[in-house]
């Protein structure tokens, strides 16, 4: 195990998979020129080891980054397409949803689409309306896609590797504000994490907090504050949103009888609605109080600090809501 940040962890994970399988390659804007420049550390110097045919610096052509990845996957390779931000990825929703997600099915299994599409979610300091969105709910709603949103460097590495080895198209959503966060990461190039398994961040018996991506860290913080007040929250980081680990959630809710779903995305129509509705439907016997959600208000992300702070879900928000749940 080594301590490293998430940017380094995913770079090492990608490099390991590229060494293991010559059919794995990456494409995106500035992938080979970003020597610590604008794009951070995710592809730093990979060009030196893998060359321009496998670390492909693309034009600013989102439709084609995604479309070419689909074509290349169908044609027998394993592309990792980087669209940078989920906001820019909106320029390629068609290729992802109409093509990648449907090709295997509509051609009756004649083809597979083993690709990974990376797109960063989440608000980052002053990113404002067009560089901050969290769109995971759209892709969970899309048949054919696997959706992953890790919270720690170790999970990011292990799940990126799993995504690359997976024969389905995988939407891999990193969080901008997590790239510099550090954690323990395995050095074993064969260690791959299973997709669809949640992580119990914190054990507890008073209520279950289900969350993912950066909100898992905030929920963990909230759990500490709650513990100080004598409330033991079980925090579950889903890590994979489709498939999501219903067993882990059901088991926890069976124990606690209380559910709070916490998400950074807009609450209305967010993935949290699916989790809450599912648990309400399937775990009603275990529930001691009704399910609750917390998420962003239905507003674009504002720029100025006080407004941005108002927008964000904090540990304090979770604590307040969790107390409501625990006390109900």
């Amino acid at each position: 195990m080594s301590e490293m940040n998430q940017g380094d962890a995913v770079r090492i994970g990608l490099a390991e998979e590229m060494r293991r399988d010559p059919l794995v390659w990456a494409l995106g804007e500035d992938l080979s020129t970003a020597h610590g420049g604008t794009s951070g550390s995710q592809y730093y110097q990979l060009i030196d080891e893998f060359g321009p045919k496998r670390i492909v610096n693309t034009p600013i052509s989102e439709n084609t980054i995604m479309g070419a990845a689909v074509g290349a996957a169908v044609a027998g390779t394993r592309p990792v397409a980087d669209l940078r931000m989920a906001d820019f990825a909106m320029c390629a929703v068609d290729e992802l949803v109409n093509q990648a997600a449907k090709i295997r099915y509509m051609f009756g299994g004649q083809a597979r689409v083993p690709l990974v599409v990376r797109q960063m979610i989440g608000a980052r300091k002053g990113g404002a309306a067009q560089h901050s969105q969290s769109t995971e709910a759209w892709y969970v709603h899309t048949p054919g896609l696997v959706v992953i949103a890790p919270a720690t460097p170790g999970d990011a590495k292990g799940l990126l590797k799993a995504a690359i080895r997976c024969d389905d198209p995988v939407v891999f959503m990193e969080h901008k504000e997590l790239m510099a966060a550090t954690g323990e990461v395995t050095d074993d190039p064969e260690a791959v994490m299973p997709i669809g398994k949640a992580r119990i961040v914190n054990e507890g018996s008073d209520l279950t907090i289900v969350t993912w991506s950066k909100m898992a860290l905030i929920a963990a913080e909230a759990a500490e504050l709650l513990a100080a007040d004598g409330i033991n929250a079980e925090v579950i980081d889903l890590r994979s949103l489709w498939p999501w680990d219903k067993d882990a959630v059901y088991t926890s809710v069976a124990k606690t009888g209380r559910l709070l779903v916490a998400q950074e995305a807009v609450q209305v129509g967010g993935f949290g609605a699916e989790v809450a509705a599912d648990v309400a439907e399937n775990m009603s016997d275990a529930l001691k109080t009704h399910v609750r959600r917390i998420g962003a208000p239905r507003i674009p992300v504002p720029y100025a600090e006080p407004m941005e702070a108002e927008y964000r879900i904090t540990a304090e928000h979770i604590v307040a809501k969790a107390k409501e749940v625990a006390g109900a």
Partner: protein
Amino acid sequence: MAEETITNKPARVFELYKTMSLIRAFEEAAEVAYDAGFVNGSIHQYIGEEAIGTGVCSNLRDTDYILSNHRGHGHAIAKGANPEAMMKELFGRVGGTSGAKGGSMHIADFSVGMLGANGILADGTTMGVGAAQALVLRGVDAIVTVFVGDGTTNRGPFYEALNWSMIYELPVLFVCENNTYASSTVTRSVTAGAGPVARAEAFGMPAFDIDGNDVLAVDELAADLISRVRGGGGPHFLHARTYRIKGHISRDKMLYRPEGETEERWKGEPIGRCAAWLLDNGIGQDELDEATSSAEKQIADAVEAAHAAPFPDAKLAFADVQDIGAPQ
């Protein structure tokens, strides 16, 4: 599918004639079946445009890929797909090329390198360049041909794909089938400048214009361009002028079309022109009649087989979605 220099020109052209006749017979039969209610979705017919797919695909190998658009029947047959399996696909029956999951608009036969028709215009262009990139990465000696309609050349992704194919020097032949119309709109009325050839040239791509109803000319030019592409000459563009004899979809009444236009343009349809050439070059009328009825017979048998084939098990709807997170 031949590639060796054909010394016996009439024999080669007669082969092209047979392929065109098979496409024509397929399209006529598909319309009859559609009108009689046996085809679940819409069909886009290729009648009058047979020379293009035929002339191009006769110069391709089984290992080469083609990416088609919504008007894909002719491309599939020319590339060697089995018309009986295709007809079963249209009928939504067991034995259909895509297991009856896709229908006419998603006709595909990966076993002969036909990577699929497509319901979303221009996406074949971006996927096609990616498929070519995969061939290069895999070191496979094969090329990609992308078919695109005139109307579709006003979609942005097409230009991204042109640029992309050039900068990576990919083995791609773009074939623009200019059949004058895009649905009910005369494409010229919404297309600025000198047209597709000039646009392709602006991206540095060698581009050629041709009478797409002259199968001999298409065959010759395609042979030349394909050998250039195959020889490492980079992407090329072929603009073939033709005319959509039928409606946009089979039930289109074409009220937008000037009276007499279809009849006028029908005079230039490619099969009759090819027949005239063959008659001038030593093939007898009886041989032509025999070829036509053989094509019609093959398609009649295909229709009969489609009628006889059972409908698929409804539960197959749940197959081939995805491995991870598949529907229960």
